[in-house]
Protein backbone atom coordinates (compact mmCIF):
# COMPACT_ATOMS: atom_id res chain seq x y z
CA UNK A 1 0.00 0.00 0.00
CA UNK A 2 1.37 3.43 -0.88
CA UNK A 3 2.11 5.99 1.83
CA UNK A 4 -0.78 8.15 0.62
CA UNK A 5 -3.22 5.23 0.75
CA UNK A 6 -1.99 4.35 4.25
CA UNK A 7 -2.56 7.92 5.35
CA UNK A 8 -6.05 8.07 3.82
CA UNK A 9 -6.95 4.73 5.42
CA UNK A 10 -5.70 5.83 8.84
CA UNK A 11 -7.63 9.11 8.75
CA UNK A 12 -10.80 7.40 7.48
CA UNK A 13 -10.52 4.78 10.21
CA UNK A 14 -10.25 7.51 12.81
CA UNK A 15 -13.25 9.32 11.35
CA UNK A 16 -15.43 6.20 11.56
CA UNK A 17 -14.17 5.34 15.05
CA UNK A 18 -14.96 8.82 16.32
CA UNK A 19 -18.50 8.66 14.98
CA UNK A 20 -19.17 5.15 16.24
CA UNK A 21 -17.95 6.12 19.71
CA UNK A 22 -20.32 9.08 19.99
CA UNK A 23 -23.78 7.60 20.58
CA UNK A 24 -25.40 10.96 19.75
CA UNK A 25 -23.69 10.96 16.36
CA UNK A 26 -25.28 7.58 15.59
CA UNK A 27 -28.64 7.74 17.30
CA UNK A 28 -29.88 11.14 16.08
CA UNK A 29 -29.12 10.62 12.37
CA UNK A 30 -30.85 7.24 12.54
CA UNK A 31 -33.79 7.91 14.82
CA UNK A 32 -34.77 11.52 14.10
CA UNK A 33 -35.38 11.14 10.34
CA UNK A 34 -37.35 7.94 10.92
CA UNK A 35 -39.49 9.58 13.61
CA UNK A 36 -40.19 12.50 11.30
CA UNK A 37 -41.01 10.02 8.54
CA UNK A 38 -43.52 8.17 10.71
CA UNK A 39 -45.11 11.40 12.02
CA UNK A 40 -45.44 12.85 8.53
CA UNK A 41 -46.79 9.60 7.18
CA UNK A 42 -49.41 9.51 9.94
CA UNK A 43 -50.42 13.12 9.43
CA UNK A 44 -50.17 13.51 5.68
CA UNK A 45 -51.32 10.11 4.46
CA UNK A 46 -54.50 11.69 3.04
CA UNK A 47 -52.29 13.55 0.54
CA UNK A 48 -52.16 10.37 -1.48
CA UNK A 49 -55.79 10.96 -2.42
CA UNK A 50 -54.88 14.12 -4.31
CA UNK A 51 -55.39 13.63 -8.02
CA UNK A 52 -52.02 13.01 -9.63
CA UNK A 53 -50.25 11.91 -6.43
CA UNK A 54 -47.65 9.42 -7.66
CA UNK A 55 -48.35 6.62 -5.16
CA UNK A 56 -50.98 5.42 -2.73
CA UNK A 57 -48.37 5.00 0.02
CA UNK A 58 -47.23 8.22 1.64
CA UNK A 59 -44.53 6.22 3.43
CA UNK A 60 -43.04 5.24 0.07
CA UNK A 61 -43.29 8.87 -1.06
CA UNK A 62 -41.69 10.29 2.08
CA UNK A 63 -38.99 7.63 2.48
CA UNK A 64 -36.70 9.76 0.33
CA UNK A 65 -36.55 12.41 3.07
CA UNK A 66 -34.46 10.47 5.64
CA UNK A 67 -31.75 9.89 3.04
CA UNK A 68 -31.28 13.64 2.64
CA UNK A 69 -31.76 14.41 6.32
CA UNK A 70 -29.18 11.79 7.18
CA UNK A 71 -26.75 13.48 4.83
CA UNK A 72 -27.43 16.79 6.58
CA UNK A 73 -26.56 15.18 9.90
CA UNK A 74 -23.36 13.92 8.27
CA UNK A 75 -22.59 17.54 7.38
CA UNK A 76 -22.93 18.59 10.98
CA UNK A 77 -20.96 15.67 12.37
CA UNK A 78 -18.12 16.11 9.91
CA UNK A 79 -17.96 19.83 10.50
CA UNK A 80 -18.20 19.65 14.26
CA UNK A 81 -15.50 16.98 14.50
CA UNK A 82 -13.15 18.90 12.27
CA UNK A 83 -13.78 22.14 14.16
CA UNK A 84 -12.94 20.32 17.38
CA UNK A 85 -9.65 19.18 15.84
CA UNK A 86 -8.86 22.79 15.04
CA UNK A 87 -9.83 24.05 18.47
CA UNK A 88 -7.89 21.38 20.36
CA UNK A 89 -4.77 21.73 18.22
CA UNK A 90 -5.13 18.21 16.82
CA UNK A 91 -4.95 19.63 13.30
CA UNK A 92 -1.63 21.25 14.22
CA UNK A 93 -0.38 17.85 15.32
CA UNK A 94 -1.40 16.42 11.94
CA UNK A 95 0.21 19.41 10.21
CA UNK A 96 3.55 18.44 11.72
CA UNK A 97 3.43 15.01 10.09
CA UNK A 98 4.17 14.46 6.39
CA UNK A 99 0.43 13.97 5.71
CA UNK A 100 -0.81 15.83 2.67
CA UNK A 101 -3.88 18.01 2.99
CA UNK A 102 -5.53 16.03 0.20
CA UNK A 103 -4.99 12.75 2.09
CA UNK A 104 -6.46 14.32 5.22
CA UNK A 105 -9.54 15.55 3.38
CA UNK A 106 -10.07 12.34 1.42
CA UNK A 107 -9.64 10.28 4.60
CA UNK A 108 -12.10 12.39 6.56
CA UNK A 109 -14.67 12.34 3.76
CA UNK A 110 -14.23 8.59 3.27
CA UNK A 111 -15.18 8.10 6.90
CA UNK A 112 -18.26 10.28 6.41
CA UNK A 113 -19.31 8.35 3.30
CA UNK A 114 -18.94 5.02 5.12
CA UNK A 115 -21.23 6.27 7.88
CA UNK A 116 -23.62 7.81 5.33
CA UNK A 117 -23.99 4.53 3.44
CA UNK A 118 -24.59 2.67 6.70
CA UNK A 119 -27.35 5.18 7.51
CA UNK A 120 -28.87 4.75 4.05
CA UNK A 121 -29.01 0.97 4.48
CA UNK A 122 -30.80 1.47 7.80
CA UNK A 123 -33.45 3.80 6.24
CA UNK A 124 -33.93 1.35 3.43
CA UNK A 125 -34.41 -1.58 5.78
CA UNK A 126 -36.92 0.42 7.86
CA UNK A 127 -38.87 1.29 4.71
CA UNK A 128 -38.95 -2.32 3.55
CA UNK A 129 -39.97 -3.54 7.03
CA UNK A 130 -42.89 -1.09 6.94
CA UNK A 131 -44.01 -2.43 3.59
CA UNK A 132 -42.44 -0.12 1.02
CA UNK A 133 -41.80 -1.91 -2.26
CA UNK A 134 -38.66 -0.79 -4.03
CA UNK A 135 -39.70 -0.25 -7.64
CA UNK A 136 -36.20 -0.19 -9.14
CA UNK A 137 -35.34 -3.59 -7.67
CA UNK A 138 -31.91 -4.75 -6.41
CA UNK A 139 -30.00 -2.75 -9.02
CA UNK A 140 -31.93 0.31 -7.87
CA UNK A 141 -30.80 -0.35 -4.30
CA UNK A 142 -27.20 -0.24 -5.45
CA UNK A 143 -27.85 3.00 -7.36
CA UNK A 144 -29.56 4.46 -4.28
CA UNK A 145 -26.59 3.63 -2.06
CA UNK A 146 -24.17 5.14 -4.57
CA UNK A 147 -26.36 8.24 -4.72
CA UNK A 148 -26.47 8.44 -0.90
CA UNK A 149 -22.69 8.19 -0.82
CA UNK A 150 -22.34 11.06 -3.29
CA UNK A 151 -24.82 13.24 -1.36
CA UNK A 152 -23.04 12.50 1.94
CA UNK A 153 -19.72 13.27 0.31
CA UNK A 154 -21.01 16.63 -0.96
CA UNK A 155 -22.69 17.66 2.28
CA UNK A 156 -19.80 16.31 4.37
CA UNK A 157 -17.36 18.40 2.36
CA UNK A 158 -19.60 21.41 2.88
CA UNK A 159 -19.53 20.82 6.65
CA UNK A 160 -15.75 20.45 6.51
CA UNK A 161 -15.50 23.73 4.59
CA UNK A 162 -17.56 25.54 7.21
CA UNK A 163 -15.43 24.09 9.99
CA UNK A 164 -12.18 25.00 8.28
CA UNK A 165 -13.27 28.56 7.63
CA UNK A 166 -14.79 29.24 11.03
CA UNK A 167 -12.72 26.93 13.24
CA UNK A 168 -15.74 26.63 15.50
CA UNK A 169 -18.11 23.72 16.10
CA UNK A 170 -20.80 26.15 17.29
CA UNK A 171 -20.55 28.12 14.06
CA UNK A 172 -20.95 24.91 12.04
CA UNK A 173 -24.00 23.91 14.06
CA UNK A 174 -25.54 27.32 13.55
CA UNK A 175 -25.81 26.49 9.84
CA UNK A 176 -27.98 23.45 10.58
CA UNK A 177 -31.29 25.39 10.63
CA UNK A 178 -30.34 26.94 7.29
CA UNK A 179 -29.95 23.51 5.75
CA UNK A 180 -33.26 22.45 7.26
CA UNK A 181 -34.97 25.42 5.66
CA UNK A 182 -33.76 24.12 2.31
CA UNK A 183 -35.31 20.78 3.14
CA UNK A 184 -38.66 22.25 4.16
CA UNK A 185 -39.01 24.47 1.09
CA UNK A 186 -38.45 21.53 -1.21
CA UNK A 187 -40.78 18.87 -2.59
CA UNK A 188 -40.32 17.03 0.69
CA UNK A 189 -44.03 16.52 1.43
CA UNK A 190 -45.74 17.22 -1.88
CA UNK A 191 -44.78 16.60 -5.50
CA UNK A 192 -43.78 19.89 -7.09
CA UNK A 193 -46.52 19.81 -9.72
CA UNK A 194 -49.13 19.49 -6.98
CA UNK A 195 -47.94 22.46 -4.95
CA UNK A 196 -50.79 24.95 -5.33
CA UNK A 197 -49.05 28.06 -4.00
CA UNK A 198 -47.05 29.65 -6.80
CA UNK A 199 -44.16 31.12 -4.75
CA UNK A 200 -43.69 27.88 -2.86
CA UNK A 201 -43.67 25.87 -6.07
CA UNK A 202 -41.13 28.32 -7.50
CA UNK A 203 -38.86 28.03 -4.46
CA UNK A 204 -39.15 24.26 -4.48
CA UNK A 205 -38.25 24.24 -8.18
CA UNK A 206 -35.07 26.26 -7.75
CA UNK A 207 -34.10 24.38 -4.59
CA UNK A 208 -31.50 21.71 -5.41
CA UNK A 209 -32.71 19.60 -2.49
CA UNK A 210 -35.96 18.93 -4.41
CA UNK A 211 -33.98 17.18 -7.15
CA UNK A 212 -32.05 15.10 -4.64
CA UNK A 213 -35.33 13.97 -3.06
CA UNK A 214 -36.96 13.27 -6.41
CA UNK A 215 -34.02 11.13 -7.49
CA UNK A 216 -34.38 8.86 -4.47
CA UNK A 217 -38.16 8.93 -4.76
CA UNK A 218 -38.07 7.89 -8.38
CA UNK A 219 -36.08 4.77 -7.54
CA UNK A 220 -38.54 3.85 -4.79
CA UNK A 221 -41.81 4.68 -6.55
CA UNK A 222 -41.27 4.73 -10.30
CA UNK A 223 -38.40 2.40 -11.01
CA UNK A 224 -36.07 3.90 -13.61
CA UNK A 225 -36.99 7.54 -14.29
CA UNK A 226 -33.93 8.67 -16.21
CA UNK A 227 -34.82 12.34 -16.05
CA UNK A 228 -35.15 12.34 -12.26
CA UNK A 229 -31.99 10.25 -11.96
CA UNK A 230 -30.07 12.55 -14.28
CA UNK A 231 -31.17 15.68 -12.45
CA UNK A 232 -30.52 14.14 -9.01
CA UNK A 233 -27.08 12.82 -9.86
CA UNK A 234 -26.26 16.04 -11.70
CA UNK A 235 -27.17 18.22 -8.72
CA UNK A 236 -25.40 15.88 -6.29
CA UNK A 237 -22.23 15.86 -8.38
CA UNK A 238 -22.23 19.65 -8.71
CA UNK A 239 -22.66 20.00 -4.91
CA UNK A 240 -19.82 17.51 -4.48
CA UNK A 241 -17.45 19.23 -6.85
CA UNK A 242 -18.13 22.71 -5.47
CA UNK A 243 -18.01 21.75 -1.80
CA UNK A 244 -14.91 19.54 -2.17
CA UNK A 245 -13.15 22.37 -4.01
CA UNK A 246 -14.13 24.80 -1.24
CA UNK A 247 -13.07 22.37 1.51
CA UNK A 248 -9.75 21.66 -0.21
CA UNK A 249 -9.06 25.38 -0.54
CA UNK A 250 -10.01 26.02 3.07
CA UNK A 251 -7.85 23.13 4.26
CA UNK A 252 -4.90 24.44 2.28
CA UNK A 253 -5.36 27.81 3.97
CA UNK A 254 -5.81 26.29 7.42
CA UNK A 255 -2.85 23.91 7.11
CA UNK A 256 -0.53 26.31 5.41
CA UNK A 257 2.88 25.57 6.79
CA UNK A 258 6.19 26.96 5.68
Amino acid at each position, binding site marked *: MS*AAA*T*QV*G*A*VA*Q*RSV*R*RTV*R*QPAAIVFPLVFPILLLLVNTGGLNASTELPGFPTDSFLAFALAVPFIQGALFATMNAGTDLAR*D*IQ*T*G*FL*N*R*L*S*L*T*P*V*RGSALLVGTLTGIVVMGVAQAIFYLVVGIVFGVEFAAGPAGVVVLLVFSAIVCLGFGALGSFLA*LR*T*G*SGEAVQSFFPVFFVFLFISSMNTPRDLIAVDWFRFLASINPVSYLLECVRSLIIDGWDWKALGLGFGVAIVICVVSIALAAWAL*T*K*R*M*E*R*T
Partner: protein
Amino acid sequence: MRDEHGIQAEGLARDFKGGIRAVDGIDLAVAPGEIYGFLGPNGAGKSTTVHMLTTLLPPTAGTARVAGFDVAREGAQVRAAIGAALQEAALDPLLSGREHLRLQTALHGMPKAQRRRRSEELLERVGLTQAADRKVKTYSGGMKRRLDLALALVHEPSILFLDEPTTGLDPQSRAALWDEVGRLRRDDGVTIFLTTQYLEEADALADRVGIIDHGRIVAEGTPGELKEEIGRASVHAVPSLVDQRERVADVLERFGELLPVVREEEVAVRLTDGVSLADVVRGLDADGVSVDEIELRAPTLDDVFLAKTGRSLEGAEEPSPEEPEPEEPIRAVVQR
Protein backbone atom coordinates in the same frame (compact mmCIF):
# COMPACT_ATOMS: atom_id res chain seq x y z
CA MET B 1 18.87 10.28 16.07
CA ARG B 2 21.62 12.71 17.08
CA ASP B 3 21.28 16.31 16.06
CA GLU B 4 24.26 17.99 14.42
CA HIS B 5 22.90 21.45 13.75
CA GLY B 6 20.72 22.67 16.60
CA ILE B 7 18.61 25.80 16.26
CA GLN B 8 19.61 29.28 15.15
CA ALA B 9 17.41 32.34 14.85
CA GLU B 10 18.25 35.89 13.95
CA GLY B 11 15.88 38.79 14.36
CA LEU B 12 12.91 36.44 14.41
CA ALA B 13 9.65 38.36 14.69
CA ARG B 14 5.94 37.79 14.34
CA ASP B 15 3.18 40.37 14.05
CA PHE B 16 -0.51 39.65 14.38
CA LYS B 17 -3.61 41.52 13.29
CA GLY B 18 -3.82 44.99 14.69
CA GLY B 19 -0.07 45.46 14.50
CA ILE B 20 0.54 43.50 17.69
CA ARG B 21 4.09 42.19 17.77
CA ALA B 22 4.11 38.91 19.72
CA VAL B 23 7.78 38.14 19.07
CA ASP B 24 10.06 41.10 18.58
CA GLY B 25 13.25 40.21 16.77
CA ILE B 26 14.79 37.51 18.91
CA ASP B 27 18.19 35.90 18.39
CA LEU B 28 18.69 32.30 19.47
CA ALA B 29 21.41 29.69 19.22
CA VAL B 30 20.73 26.25 20.62
CA ALA B 31 23.63 23.83 20.35
CA PRO B 32 23.13 20.20 19.26
CA GLY B 33 22.26 18.01 22.23
CA GLU B 34 21.46 20.96 24.44
CA ILE B 35 18.35 21.49 26.55
CA TYR B 36 17.35 25.10 26.07
CA GLY B 37 14.80 26.47 28.50
CA PHE B 38 12.65 29.30 27.18
CA LEU B 39 11.28 30.95 30.27
CA GLY B 40 8.63 33.62 30.47
CA PRO B 41 5.15 34.46 31.71
CA ASN B 42 1.99 33.69 29.74
CA GLY B 43 1.72 35.91 26.72
CA ALA B 44 5.45 36.61 26.55
CA GLY B 45 5.80 35.10 23.07
CA LYS B 46 7.01 31.59 23.90
CA SER B 47 4.39 29.63 21.99
CA THR B 48 4.53 31.96 19.00
CA THR B 49 8.29 31.35 18.85
CA VAL B 50 7.72 27.60 18.99
CA HIS B 51 5.12 27.81 16.23
CA MET B 52 7.58 29.68 14.03
CA LEU B 53 10.44 27.28 14.73
CA THR B 54 8.19 24.27 14.03
CA THR B 55 7.01 25.77 10.68
CA LEU B 56 3.40 26.17 11.81
CA LEU B 57 3.62 29.93 11.61
CA PRO B 58 5.70 31.95 9.16
CA PRO B 59 7.90 34.63 10.68
CA THR B 60 7.05 38.22 9.79
CA ALA B 61 10.73 39.10 9.90
CA GLY B 62 14.07 37.47 10.57
CA THR B 63 15.35 34.01 9.82
CA ALA B 64 15.60 30.70 11.63
CA ARG B 65 17.29 27.42 10.89
CA VAL B 66 16.29 24.22 12.63
CA ALA B 67 18.34 21.05 12.14
CA GLY B 68 20.20 22.90 9.42
CA PHE B 69 17.06 23.82 7.44
CA ASP B 70 15.46 27.19 6.91
CA VAL B 71 12.03 27.24 8.60
CA ALA B 72 10.56 29.54 5.95
CA ARG B 73 11.81 27.74 2.86
CA GLU B 74 12.49 24.15 3.90
CA GLY B 75 9.46 23.42 6.04
CA ALA B 76 9.12 19.78 5.04
CA GLN B 77 12.74 19.02 5.95
CA VAL B 78 12.36 20.83 9.26
CA ARG B 79 9.21 18.86 10.09
CA ALA B 80 10.94 15.59 9.23
CA ALA B 81 13.70 16.38 11.73
CA ILE B 82 11.63 17.64 14.64
CA GLY B 83 9.05 16.39 17.09
CA ALA B 84 6.74 18.69 18.98
CA ALA B 85 4.44 18.46 21.95
CA LEU B 86 2.59 21.73 21.78
CA GLN B 87 0.81 23.54 24.60
CA GLU B 88 -2.25 21.61 25.83
CA ALA B 89 -1.84 17.98 24.78
CA ALA B 90 -3.76 17.86 21.50
CA LEU B 91 -5.31 14.42 21.73
CA ASP B 92 -8.55 12.87 20.60
CA PRO B 93 -10.49 11.92 23.73
CA LEU B 94 -12.36 9.20 21.84
CA LEU B 95 -9.25 7.31 20.69
CA SER B 96 -7.06 5.09 22.83
CA GLY B 97 -3.37 5.69 23.38
CA ARG B 98 -2.50 2.83 21.05
CA GLU B 99 -4.83 4.16 18.35
CA HIS B 100 -3.17 7.56 18.58
CA LEU B 101 0.22 5.99 18.03
CA ARG B 102 -1.03 3.84 15.15
CA LEU B 103 -2.49 6.93 13.49
CA GLN B 104 0.67 8.95 13.99
CA THR B 105 2.93 6.18 12.69
CA ALA B 106 0.66 5.71 9.66
CA LEU B 107 0.77 9.43 8.88
CA HIS B 108 4.55 9.20 8.99
CA GLY B 109 4.26 6.56 6.29
CA MET B 110 5.66 3.62 8.27
CA PRO B 111 4.93 0.08 7.04
CA LYS B 112 2.39 -1.87 9.07
CA ALA B 113 4.86 -4.04 11.00
CA GLN B 114 6.97 -1.04 11.88
CA ARG B 115 3.89 0.88 12.98
CA ARG B 116 3.00 -1.86 15.42
CA ARG B 117 6.55 -2.24 16.72
CA ARG B 118 7.17 1.48 17.15
CA SER B 119 3.82 2.00 18.88
CA GLU B 120 4.54 -0.73 21.40
CA GLU B 121 8.07 0.57 22.01
CA LEU B 122 6.82 4.05 22.74
CA LEU B 123 3.94 2.89 24.94
CA GLU B 124 6.48 0.95 26.96
CA ARG B 125 8.86 3.87 27.09
CA VAL B 126 6.32 6.32 28.48
CA GLY B 127 4.76 3.74 30.79
CA LEU B 128 1.37 3.55 29.12
CA THR B 129 1.32 -0.11 28.07
CA GLN B 130 -1.31 -1.01 30.66
CA ALA B 131 -3.53 1.92 29.68
CA ALA B 132 -2.87 1.62 25.94
CA ASP B 133 -6.39 0.49 25.03
CA ARG B 134 -8.24 2.93 27.26
CA LYS B 135 -9.79 5.98 25.67
CA VAL B 136 -7.73 9.10 26.24
CA LYS B 137 -10.66 10.82 27.96
CA THR B 138 -10.03 8.50 30.92
CA TYR B 139 -6.34 9.49 31.18
CA SER B 140 -4.94 11.77 33.86
CA GLY B 141 -3.14 14.97 32.89
CA GLY B 142 0.24 13.27 33.35
CA MET B 143 -0.75 10.31 31.17
CA LYS B 144 -1.93 12.67 28.43
CA ARG B 145 1.37 14.53 28.53
CA ARG B 146 3.31 11.27 28.33
CA LEU B 147 1.25 10.14 25.36
CA ASP B 148 1.80 13.54 23.77
CA LEU B 149 5.54 13.08 24.22
CA ALA B 150 5.38 9.56 22.74
CA LEU B 151 3.55 10.92 19.68
CA ALA B 152 6.24 13.55 19.21
CA LEU B 153 8.89 10.82 19.23
CA VAL B 154 7.27 8.50 16.69
CA HIS B 155 9.70 9.30 13.87
CA GLU B 156 12.78 9.55 16.10
CA PRO B 157 13.29 13.30 15.74
CA SER B 158 16.68 14.84 16.41
CA ILE B 159 15.15 18.03 17.84
CA LEU B 160 12.23 18.12 20.22
CA PHE B 161 10.03 21.12 21.00
CA LEU B 162 8.13 20.93 24.26
CA ASP B 163 5.75 23.80 24.84
CA GLU B 164 4.98 24.04 28.56
CA PRO B 165 4.99 20.26 28.92
CA THR B 166 4.32 20.19 32.65
CA THR B 167 1.74 22.96 33.05
CA GLY B 168 -1.03 21.71 35.29
CA LEU B 169 0.73 18.50 36.26
CA ASP B 170 1.10 17.20 39.80
CA PRO B 171 4.68 17.08 41.18
CA GLN B 172 5.02 13.34 40.60
CA SER B 173 3.99 13.54 36.94
CA ARG B 174 6.22 16.55 36.49
CA ALA B 175 9.22 14.69 37.90
CA ALA B 176 8.51 11.69 35.64
CA LEU B 177 8.45 13.95 32.59
CA TRP B 178 11.66 15.68 33.66
CA ASP B 179 13.33 12.26 33.92
CA GLU B 180 12.22 11.35 30.42
CA VAL B 181 13.39 14.67 28.98
CA GLY B 182 16.78 14.20 30.63
CA ARG B 183 17.02 10.67 29.29
CA LEU B 184 16.19 11.79 25.75
CA ARG B 185 19.09 14.20 25.78
CA ARG B 186 21.50 11.90 27.60
CA ASP B 187 20.83 8.62 25.78
CA ASP B 188 19.57 9.76 22.38
CA GLY B 189 21.38 13.06 21.95
CA VAL B 190 18.12 14.87 21.22
CA THR B 191 18.25 18.66 21.24
CA ILE B 192 15.39 19.98 23.34
CA PHE B 193 13.74 23.38 23.16
CA LEU B 194 11.52 23.64 26.20
CA THR B 195 9.23 26.50 27.04
CA THR B 196 8.11 26.91 30.59
CA GLN B 197 6.75 29.40 33.04
CA TYR B 198 8.15 27.41 35.96
CA LEU B 199 11.45 28.69 37.29
CA GLU B 200 12.36 25.42 38.96
CA GLU B 201 11.76 23.55 35.70
CA ALA B 202 14.15 25.75 33.77
CA ASP B 203 16.62 25.58 36.64
CA ALA B 204 16.46 21.80 36.93
CA LEU B 205 16.39 20.83 33.27
CA ALA B 206 17.96 23.46 31.07
CA ASP B 207 21.61 23.72 30.14
CA ARG B 208 20.90 27.27 29.13
CA VAL B 209 17.94 29.52 29.68
CA GLY B 210 16.52 32.34 27.60
CA ILE B 211 14.17 34.65 29.46
CA ILE B 212 11.53 36.22 27.24
CA ASP B 213 9.25 39.11 28.12
CA HIS B 214 7.00 41.12 25.79
CA GLY B 215 8.44 39.22 22.82
CA ARG B 216 12.06 40.02 23.59
CA ILE B 217 14.81 37.95 25.13
CA VAL B 218 15.85 39.91 28.18
CA ALA B 219 18.50 37.52 29.51
CA GLU B 220 20.26 34.39 28.34
CA GLY B 221 22.84 32.05 29.79
CA THR B 222 23.19 29.01 32.01
CA PRO B 223 21.02 29.18 35.14
CA GLY B 224 24.25 29.56 37.13
CA GLU B 225 25.53 32.42 35.00
CA LEU B 226 22.24 34.24 35.17
CA LYS B 227 22.03 33.96 38.92
CA GLU B 228 25.66 34.96 39.23
CA GLU B 229 24.84 38.07 37.26
CA ILE B 230 22.48 39.00 40.07
CA GLY B 231 25.18 37.89 42.48
CA ARG B 232 23.89 39.13 45.78
CA ALA B 233 21.59 37.27 48.09
CA SER B 234 18.36 38.70 49.47
CA VAL B 235 16.88 38.76 52.95
CA HIS B 236 13.15 38.28 53.42
CA ALA B 237 11.51 39.13 56.75
CA VAL B 238 7.96 39.01 58.13
CA PRO B 239 7.34 41.41 61.06
CA SER B 240 5.78 40.03 64.24
CA LEU B 241 3.26 42.85 64.22
CA VAL B 242 1.59 44.02 61.04
CA ASP B 243 1.96 47.70 61.95
CA GLN B 244 5.73 47.25 62.20
CA ARG B 245 6.13 46.54 58.52
CA GLU B 246 7.29 50.08 57.82
CA ARG B 247 9.86 49.95 60.63
CA VAL B 248 11.21 46.63 59.36
CA ALA B 249 11.45 48.10 55.87
CA ASP B 250 13.35 51.12 57.25
CA VAL B 251 15.89 48.88 58.94
CA LEU B 252 16.30 46.52 55.97
CA GLU B 253 16.75 49.41 53.56
CA ARG B 254 20.01 50.29 55.35
CA PHE B 255 21.48 46.98 54.11
CA GLY B 256 20.54 47.09 50.44
CA GLU B 257 17.78 47.87 47.98
CA LEU B 258 14.20 46.90 48.78
CA LEU B 259 12.59 44.32 46.51
CA PRO B 260 8.99 43.83 45.41
CA VAL B 261 7.37 40.97 47.33
CA VAL B 262 4.66 38.45 46.65
CA ARG B 263 3.30 38.30 50.22
CA GLU B 264 1.87 41.58 51.44
CA GLU B 265 3.23 41.25 54.96
CA GLU B 266 6.76 40.47 53.81
CA VAL B 267 9.69 42.85 53.41
CA ALA B 268 12.67 41.92 51.22
CA VAL B 269 16.01 43.49 50.48
CA ARG B 270 18.80 42.67 48.03
CA LEU B 271 21.89 42.81 50.21
CA THR B 272 24.72 45.19 49.41
CA ASP B 273 28.08 43.48 48.85
CA GLY B 274 29.74 42.51 52.13
CA VAL B 275 26.55 42.58 54.19
CA SER B 276 25.54 39.36 55.95
CA LEU B 277 22.31 38.05 57.46
CA ALA B 278 23.89 38.58 60.89
CA ASP B 279 24.27 42.30 60.13
CA VAL B 280 20.56 42.54 59.32
CA VAL B 281 19.56 40.66 62.48
CA ARG B 282 21.76 42.91 64.60
CA GLY B 283 20.22 45.97 62.93
CA LEU B 284 16.68 44.78 63.69
CA ASP B 285 17.69 43.98 67.26
CA ALA B 286 19.30 47.38 67.76
CA ASP B 287 16.07 49.07 66.63
CA GLY B 288 13.97 46.82 68.85
CA VAL B 289 11.95 45.43 65.94
CA SER B 290 10.94 41.80 66.16
CA VAL B 291 10.22 39.51 63.23
CA ASP B 292 8.44 36.15 62.98
CA GLU B 293 10.44 34.95 60.02
CA ILE B 294 13.73 35.95 58.52
CA GLU B 295 15.36 34.13 55.66
CA LEU B 296 18.48 34.50 53.53
CA ARG B 297 17.84 33.50 49.92
CA ALA B 298 20.37 32.78 47.21
CA PRO B 299 19.53 34.43 43.87
CA THR B 300 16.92 32.58 41.78
CA LEU B 301 15.86 32.85 38.17
CA ASP B 302 12.91 34.86 39.44
CA ASP B 303 15.41 37.38 40.78
CA VAL B 304 16.96 37.45 37.32
CA PHE B 305 13.54 38.05 35.78
CA LEU B 306 12.84 40.72 38.36
CA ALA B 307 16.17 42.42 37.72
CA LYS B 308 15.64 42.42 33.95
CA THR B 309 11.97 43.34 33.80
CA GLY B 310 11.18 45.01 37.11
CA ARG B 311 8.49 42.38 37.78
CA SER B 312 8.38 39.03 39.45
CA LEU B 313 7.71 36.12 37.10
CA GLU B 314 4.87 35.00 39.35
CA GLY B 315 1.83 37.02 38.40
CA ALA B 316 3.64 38.63 35.48
CA GLU B 317 1.32 37.13 32.89
CA GLU B 318 -0.76 39.40 30.77
CA PRO B 319 -3.01 38.95 27.78
CA SER B 320 -1.12 38.83 24.54
CA PRO B 321 -1.89 37.36 21.12
CA GLU B 322 0.00 34.10 21.57
CA GLU B 323 -1.97 32.64 18.69
CA PRO B 324 -3.61 34.11 15.62
CA GLU B 325 -7.32 34.86 15.77
CA PRO B 326 -9.46 31.88 14.74
CA GLU B 327 -10.51 33.61 11.55
CA GLU B 328 -6.89 34.07 10.61
CA PRO B 329 -5.58 30.61 9.86
CA ILE B 330 -1.92 29.77 10.24
CA ARG B 331 -0.50 30.62 6.87
CA ALA B 332 2.62 30.50 4.84
CA VAL B 333 3.69 29.13 1.52
CA VAL B 334 3.51 25.35 1.33
CA GLN B 335 6.62 23.77 -0.13
CA ARG B 336 6.01 20.05 -0.08
